[in-house]
């Protein structure tokens, strides 16, 4: 975290001492401004964020019109924005931003949800700018999922899938985007789609992942995702097709490919056991031990498991 040492820092101790007014429940505009100063010096002072929310809800909002409350919330959204631009990984600031969104007042008059809807919809654009700056920031991804759950945000699963496709196409190693994709699909499958649709989606997905694998076969995230798509390998035809693809790749990046190849061949053994195929897996695992000595213990365990596999 970076800290603003230059900005009024010599008096931080005095300012903090003044906040003992917190115990006296001093909820005035003056104490509010004191919290702004302290938070701009150090956005991790969680107690000061708490105090700020108390000042607003107990001392200030009750005296204001809905429009004024909305302006104050907008000011706090701006405050968290500048804090996040400097320190995009501070939990307390993201937390305060959520609080702001949840405290946007209802409009007086006809269009009841207008302010709220505007704030939440705007938030989706805001979060995309954070993910453009750092596509792996998990705070920003968590916040994105939070915003997408809002009833004010109309965003279909296809739109979210397209978003992750864009992220992945700009960098195949964006594991956060692959992860998000797995979540979009899981929720789609849980809602129920027919077998034909499922098959066509999975085939599209295999095409995308194949591109990724050919671009960087050394990236674990892609293999994790591939294994997830293959699952327990109940579809033998698919399993054989993917094994063939990996065997073609073997000459380029043997160690990563080998790991998954052994995994799939072991799944295949469960369909059709033969000593010859089992021994092939064991031979592959000793090759892997030589290629990747750091994880030797794991490959040894895999070989031992193959040796004790029941031959039914």
């Amino acid at each position, binding site marked *: 975290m970076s800290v603003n040492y230059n900005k009024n820092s010599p008096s931080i101790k005095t300012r903090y001492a003044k906040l003992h007014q917190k115990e006296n429940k001093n909820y005035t505009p003056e104490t509010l401004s004191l919290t702004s100063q302290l938070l701009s010096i150090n956005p991790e*002072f969680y107690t000061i964020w708490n105090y700020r929310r108390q000042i607003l809800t107990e001392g200030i909002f009750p005296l204001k019109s809905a429009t004024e409350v909305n302006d104050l919330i907008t000011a706090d959204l701006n405050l968290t924005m500048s804090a996040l631009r400097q320190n995009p990984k501070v939990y307390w600031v993201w*937390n305060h931003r959520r609080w702001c969104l949840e405290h946007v007042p209802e409009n007086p008059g006809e269009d009841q949800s207008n302010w709220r809807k505007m704030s939440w919809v705007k938030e989706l654009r805001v979060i995309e700018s954070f993910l453009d700056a750092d596509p792996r920031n998990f705070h920003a991804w968590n916040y994105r999922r939070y915003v997408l759950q809002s009833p004010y945000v109309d965003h279909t699963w296809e739109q979210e899938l397209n978003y992750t496709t864009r992220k992945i196409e700009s960098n195949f190693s964006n594991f956060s985007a692959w992860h998000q994709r797995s979540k979009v699909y899981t929720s789609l499958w849980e809602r129920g789609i027919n077998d034909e649709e499922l098959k066509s989606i999975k085939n599209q997905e295999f095409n995308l992942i194949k591109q990724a694998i050919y671009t960087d076969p050394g990236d674990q995230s892609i293999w994790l995702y591939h294994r997830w798509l293959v699952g327990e390998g109940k579809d033998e035809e698919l399993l054989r097709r993917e094994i063939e693809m990996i065997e073609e790749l073997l000459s380029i990046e043997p160690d990563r490919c080998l790991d998954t190849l052994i995994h799939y061949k072991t799944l295949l053994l469960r369909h059709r056991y033969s000593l010859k195929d089992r021994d092939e897996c064991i031979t592959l695992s000793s090759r892997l031990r030589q290629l990747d000595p750091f994880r030797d213990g794991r490959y040894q365990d895999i070989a031992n498991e193959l040796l004790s596999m029941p031959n039914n």
Partner: protein
Amino acid sequence: MKSNISTELLVDSHVKFIQSLGEDRDLTYHLTTHLRMNAVYWAVTALCIMGRKEALDREQMIDFVLSCWDDEAGGFGSHPGHDAHLLSTLSAIQILTIQDAVDRMDVPRVVKFISSLQTSSGTFAGDHYGETDTRFSYCAINALSLLDMKYLTPGTAVIDVDKVIDHISRCRNFDGGFGSGVGAESHAGQVWVCLAALSILGRLDIVDEKTLGWWLAERQLPNGGLNGRPEKLEDVCYSFWVLSSLSILRKLHWINRDALISFILSAQDPDDGGIADRPGDMCDVFHTLFGIAGLSLLGYPNLQDIDPVYCMPAKLIEKKGLKKTWLALPRHLS
């Protein structure tokens, strides 16, 4: 960059580094008050692993912890005058347990504070302002079990244990890991808190050990260090979070011991003591603890055992009857 890289653990320098932390009440001290209680826990735990617990004054430490009591909330804040939070409350309980002084705090009120933070979805908020995270579920389970297992046992439980387990299982991802909440990406720190909570609750059966073990083993990079997520930089703190997770799964032999030891040792400051996130960076007590704790799990010579579930001295946890089925690497002789 420091030029001379150490090849052994500089125990005396680290003890001095830790002792010096509270001395200068400079600007940095005031800017880190939000972490002070955690820092004291990191410091005393690091000292315990090095067998130098007495290097910090016991009474002074207990007085500090008690001075952070937030009487309105019924929990501990990170510093006198700061609001109670689950993170600092767990650290307070851990410090008082290490110092055998739990009787000095108001246990029933703390239990009430912790149990009041469980939400309807089963997870925990860190305080009454509502931010939820699987870290906080772990804090609650760890703290309550340290105070008394009866708080988690059917019939006398003060929280809904089944709901905690259900929530953690919903935070599980396709890579076998766990995130900070439902839908969140796997991260080694979150994997550790979820595994440790499940271990305390005796529910490691819901873990996909092979997939997660693979994910964890792949955290080791060619320079020997561990990262916290795919395609990220190595950092000494993952030497604890990845290792403790592997240790809970009894798969510590799935990474290369010697390469990781060299990486941790190379992140020491040979002049002023302490360990940094990676070689050449500024040292802090957080990375000092997690580097030393990692070395202990790897069987580095002349260290005390650390319990990977609690990140506390193993002997103490065993004495309290809380030891689980984890496995560390055998300790090498010097």
